[in-house]
């Protein structure tokens, strides 16, 4: 697994495509003819200046830049002052999944919308304070399978790889003579097959 997968330079990254699908509030600055169908609220052919719409990041980003921006992007709710205060108070107690399933990644896209630089600081602070929790979770996976529910996608990825590494270390410590195993995809494929068979029996 590589973390650089999800970042911007990787054109083929599935994660990045999913992040840029997230919607951000936008305000139209000039008249855009013929694109009224983007706004489900009206029947008009054009989008009038002043219209407020939620557009996916992939559309909002290119048309908000350049010499003549069509729209101005507003900060999404999770990165606004009130939410930032919550994170500053205690980031560990927060259910980050509810803040946004791609909290960090989307944060990197919207950070330049905040001239004070607060968003960036909060992102860093959140990650740093939650990282200890994450470390703790990967080292001591208890009986509770719901711990993952409070993590955002980036944290989940870290959790999974951390957990896998921990398991490998454990087996290696117990006996260094590891048995050879079937390939991961083969094992998965078998499991899926078993489910299919069960479905057939029911019918």
């Amino acid at each position: 697994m590589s973390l650089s997968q999800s970042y911007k330079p990787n054109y083929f990254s599935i994660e990045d495509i999913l992040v840029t699908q997230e919607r951000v509030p936008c305000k139209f600055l000039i008249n855009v003819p013929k694109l009224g169908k983007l706004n489900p609220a009206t029947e008009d052919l054009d989008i009038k200046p002043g219209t407020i719409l939620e557009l996916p990041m992939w559309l909002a980003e290119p048309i908000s830049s350049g010499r003549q921006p069509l729209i101005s992007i507003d900060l999404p709710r999770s990165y606004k002052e009130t939410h930032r205060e919550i994170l500053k108070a205690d980031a560990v107690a927060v259910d980050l999944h509810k803040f946004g399933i791609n909290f960090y990644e989307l944060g990197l896209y919207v950070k330049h919308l905040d001239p004070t630089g607060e968003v960036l600081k909060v992102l860093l602070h959140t990650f740093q304070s939650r990282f200890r929790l994450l470390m703790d979770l990967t080292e001591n996976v208890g009986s509770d399978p719901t711990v993952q529910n409070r993590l955002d996608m980036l944290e989940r990825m870290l959790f999974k790889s951390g957990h896998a590494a921990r398991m490998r270390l454990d087996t290696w410590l117990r006996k260094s003579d590891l048995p050879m195993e079937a390939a991961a995809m083969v094992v998965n494929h078998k499991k899926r097959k078993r489910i299919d068979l069960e479905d057939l029996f029911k019918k």
Partner: protein
Amino acid sequence: MFGDSAYTLIKELDRNPGTLPPYNNELVGEVKKEICHLVQQNHADSMANDESILGENGTNYFPTIRARHAGVQRNLRCLLAYHYNRVKCLRTMRWEFGSILPPDIKANLSSIETNWFSKYSSMLAKYMRSISEDGGLNLTVDLNPPKALYIEVKCLVDYGQYELSDGSVLLLKENSRHFLPRNECEDLIRQGVFQHIVT
């Protein structure tokens, strides 16, 4: 809105990590059509734009063209990412399943992907044959150094007859145990036929 069907394609891949969902011919066609449609609209509007600049009182379509162009690029990205990631998964499958894919996976491939797989498969086999003087080296098996020449294995499925390299034939039944040279069973362990028993 445009870009939605492309997103569905990507979503489909995201939901099935480590496996290949059936090649979605229908949706790929839809995305292609959408790209063509957007480009045509942009082309028509860019022509109108020229006239309005001359007359200086027509509608300015430039913002619309920019928005549509973003849509075209997005669709293109999703389409390329869809195919790229499928092929990447297929490549891993060559290493894990070996040169013959299970029939239910094969059914999920498009014809181009099947072609690609057989080409990649023969390329890899050719490379592995060329590694050492005496018959090549199988790189797809377990890469940990062995501790013993012979290992004990348990058969997990009714495999049928299996011929060893010295010519003797074994009958592999479910739950039968065998004590075999390590190099003979590496492949079958990898494919999930044998389970390696370590005491």
